[in-house]
């Protein structure tokens, strides 16, 4: 009888340890963190991404943004002039928005009238400008990861990317790893 009890306890202990490990792993997979893949370069979508990010940061949620493809245009600094681009990169650079303030609307762009109207409406309705949102994001420690491969594909150079305190260059694996441990993942 005594021996039986000991064996049961030992078994329970082992099960307990296995459970603890499992819980730890699950908890690690659901950190209070928001991972967002931002692929669109439309003004409205960048605005949505930034508003959601700021709201999450206000909730003390760690925010990690992964900028890729068309969204890279929103990270360009119009004051910077990178040298040594090939012909196609120069064309891309000319045809894509020069900065977050030159983005187009996905709807009702009306050859640039739409963004002008939205910006003036935002001002009137006290909605933060994209400039202000990026400033707040920097202050709140929101991280931006720039997709290295997209940079290369679109011919953007690091020298033309905005100065942002929490910015790094990485690949899709970094996004997947970040997203894997986040309780929230979004794709815009």
């Amino acid at each position, binding site marked *: 009888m005594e021996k039986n009890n000991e064996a049961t306890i030992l078994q329970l202990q082992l099960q307990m340890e296995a459970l603890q490990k499992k819980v730890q792993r699950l908890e690690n997979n659901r950190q209070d963190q928001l991972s967002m893949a931002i692929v669109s370069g439309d003004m409205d979508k960048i605005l949505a991404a930034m508003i959601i990010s700021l709201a999450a940061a206000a909730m003390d949620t760690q925010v990690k943004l992964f900028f890729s493809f068309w969204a890279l245009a929103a990270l360009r600094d119009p004051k910077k002039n990178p040298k040594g681009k090939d012909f196609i990169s120069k064309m891309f650079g000319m045809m894509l928005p020069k900065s977050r303030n030159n983005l187009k609307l996905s709807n009702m762009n009306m050859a640039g009238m739409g963004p002008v109207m939205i910006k003036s409406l935002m001002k009137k309705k*006290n909605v933060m400008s994209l400039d202000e949102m990026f400033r707040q994001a920097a202050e709140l420690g929101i991280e931006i990861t720039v997709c290295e491969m997209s940079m290369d594909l679109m011919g953007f150079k690091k020298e033309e990317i905005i100065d942002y305190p929490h910015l790094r260059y990485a690949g899709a694996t970094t996004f997947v790893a970040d997203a894997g441990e986040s309780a929230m993942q979004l794709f815009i």
Partner: protein
Amino acid sequence: MTTEELKNVAVAKSVDARGTACPGPLLEAKKAIGTIGVNDVMEVLSADEGTKVDIPKWCNKQGHEYLGFVEENGYFKIYLKKQ
């Protein structure tokens, strides 16, 4: 708390976020909450309808006690107690 009780509550900090739309009021609340002590009451003034729904959710997440809101002329006063 009833509207009457809320109007008479001692407020340790008042955050006037009427000049900013979503998510501005939440960001201002987050910044201000660090400046008051536990059990102090903070009021957030917002002209944004959404804020009165957002603040209770924010309180719930952050562990603060949401007390209620009072509707003023064209804006809301939202009350919470820091925990």
